[in-house]
């Protein structure tokens, strides 16, 4: 309920802040009720003359200001309490803000009740409480132009216990919150931590990285020891799964070592990794031996020229070899992530789908999101999941929604209704915990633009340079590296992560006027 510019009375009984004259004549109407035998209207009017000890104070003008969100919250609470406490049938409160000329109404209360005693008592009760508790202040201007903000001496400021802030913690609350897990202001429980181990990459995909990119100096990136420490703290707070990303994680030396350490952290049930696959040929076996549970491979095109056009490097053959090596190493339920780009990848949709069906990979199409290094994205460019689905259906037959066993996972999964010999045998999920079942060589759609899944989001992020982020698109970060490198305790890291979670917004807001592009590009956050 924001302060309104107009001076109309509310349609029904509620509390309101307004910026123009209060239409008191219609206020009584707002509380009319069949069950009401008594209707009371109180108006507080600004005085031009205030009796003083020696002389009278002359006021020519008043100005009111408020901490509006808080004032609205308090007024609403007071109104509700008045209704309950006095058995009112209706109650309207209006407080005016801004300049109020002498003799005009600054506050108005209308109450109705079965009998007059309650109606009168409630109005008086409300005025007492409003004057004591609502964060509104008046400034009196005298005849000589002197302006004085009124802050009564009697220590009248709101009782903090009456209106406690939600979501803030006293020292004793911290411990109990740590046990409760990483829950944000919207009730989302966070169990997934994406850890970027590098901002470097051996490709230059147009939607992710600018051509002349500047990478962070290596000493600005977290060491494996630091990463493991943060992961440990996070696991203690409720993180259950870790996904290693980058840039391209495999370009960092000995990622298998990191994997080996992460899988042993108590509380961590799954460690997975997203890669462009170029180095999988060499590292798949090591990764599997180190205990990596799952692999996601990014592949947007099977056409060599198109691959090169998007990635600005050659390498399709290495990716395919890497996928083969991953299968040989024993990775099951490998997921292929394909970014859909209008005007570019439409022709790859069916070939990719057929390839994945044959190989037993679960394919997912991802709508192109606004995080490219060249700062070039517009609404019209989104090749939506729905359109991709339509193309697939036209060529490969109907798609049937698959059972979703993992609510936090953003993809909507389908299986092909027309199963045929071209499909690989159903791949049982050997590596995943908690009964996550990947449909046998099905296809999924991650649609962050057309179907935001913010309400189910369960993931947090740690960038390669040690910043916590609560959203890919957030514009604020929390500096864990500083805590680590200035001798901070695990408790401090924990508190930082909790602060980060608590500040999480409802949604990323893509496509809304409020959306603010983050200053980092994807390769710097960890896709």
């Amino acid at each position, binding site marked *: 309920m924001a302060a309104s510019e107009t001076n109309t009375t509310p349609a029904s009984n509620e509390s309101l802040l307004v910026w123009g004259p209060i239409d008191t004549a219609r206020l009584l109407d707002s509380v009319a009720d069949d069950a009401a035998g008594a209707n009371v209207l109180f108006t507080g009017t600004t005085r031009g003359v205030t009796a003083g000890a020696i002389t009278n104070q002359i006021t020519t003008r008043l100005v009111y200001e408020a901490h509006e969100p*808080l004032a609205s919250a308090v007024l609403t609470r007071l109104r509700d309490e008045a209704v309950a406490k006095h058995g009112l049938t209706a109650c309207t409160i209006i407080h005016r803000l801004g300049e109020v000329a002498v003799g005009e109404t600054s506050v108005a209360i209308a109450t109705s009740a079965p009998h007059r005693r309650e109606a009168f008592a409630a109005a008086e009760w409300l005025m007492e409480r409003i*004057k004591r508790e609502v964060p*509104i202040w008046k400034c009196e201007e005298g005849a000589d132009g002197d302006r004085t903000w*009124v802050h009564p*001496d009697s220590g009248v*400021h*709101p009782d903090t216990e*009456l209106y406690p802030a939600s979501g803030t913690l006293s020292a004793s609350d911290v411990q109990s919150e740590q046990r409760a897990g990483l829950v944000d202001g919207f009730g989302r429980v966070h169990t997934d931590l994406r850890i970027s181990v590098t901002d470097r990459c051996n490709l230059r995909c147009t939607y992710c990285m600018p051509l002349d990119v500047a990478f962070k100096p290596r000493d600005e990136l977290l060491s494996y020891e630091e990463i493991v420490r943060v992961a440990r703290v996070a696991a203690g707070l409720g993180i259950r799964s870790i996904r290693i990303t980058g840039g391209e994680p495999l370009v960092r030396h000995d990622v298998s070592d990191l994997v080996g350490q992460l899988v042993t952290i108590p509380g961590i049930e799954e460690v997975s990794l997203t890669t462009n696959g170029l180095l999988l040929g060499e590292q798949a076996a090591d990764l599997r031996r180190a205990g990596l549970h799952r692999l996601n491979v990014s592949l947007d095109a099977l056409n060599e020229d198109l691959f090169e056009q998007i990635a600005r490097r050659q390498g399709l053959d290495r990716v395919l070899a890497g996928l083969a090596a991953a299968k040989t190493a024993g990775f099951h339920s490998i997921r292929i992530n394909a970014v859909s780009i209008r005007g570019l990848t439409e022709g790859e949709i069916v070939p990719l789908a057929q390839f994945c069906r044959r190989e037993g990979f679960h394919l997912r199409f991802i709508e192109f999101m606004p995080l490219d290094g060249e700062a070039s994205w517009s609404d019209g460019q989104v090749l939506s999941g729905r359109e991709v689905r339509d193309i697939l259906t036209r060529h490969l037959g109907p798609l049937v929604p698959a059972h979703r066993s993992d609510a936090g996972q953003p993809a909507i999964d389908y299986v092909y209704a027309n199963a045929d010999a071209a499909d690989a045998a159903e791949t049982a999920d050997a590596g995943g915990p908690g009964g996550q079942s990947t449909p046998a060589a099905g296809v999924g759609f991650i649609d962050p633009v057309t179907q935001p899944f913010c309400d189910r989001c369960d993931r947090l992020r740690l960038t390669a340079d040690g910043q916590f982020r609560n959203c890919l698109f957030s514009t604020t970060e929390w500096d864990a590296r500083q805590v680590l490198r200035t001798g901070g305790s695990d408790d401090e890291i924990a*508190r930082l992560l909790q602060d980060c979670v608590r500040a999480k917004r409802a949604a990323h807001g893509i496509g809304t006027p409020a959306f603010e592009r983050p*200053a980092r590009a994807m390769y710097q956050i960890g896709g």
Partner: protein
Amino acid sequence: MHASHSTSDQPTRADTLRVSLFAGMAAAIGRRSLELAWDGGTAASLRSRLAADFPAIAPLLARSAVAIGDGYVTDDSRVPCGADVAIIPPVSGG
């Protein structure tokens, strides 16, 4: 530690605090809003910090409440980095 600024190539660091001021307190220092470098602490430590940085508002500050978001906080409450804090001096509405 200095407060970091939001520039075109740097994200906002959450090691700052925005403090909203009102009425006589805002008039006393000519500011409606302050941005402080902040690495965590309680409401009590925020009070001390504000009183030290802005002596002109210290007396009124002592009679004011601290609000974060939708309500008031006690002095021993933690003020997280990136929080939206308001100082509420004695009120005079109604």
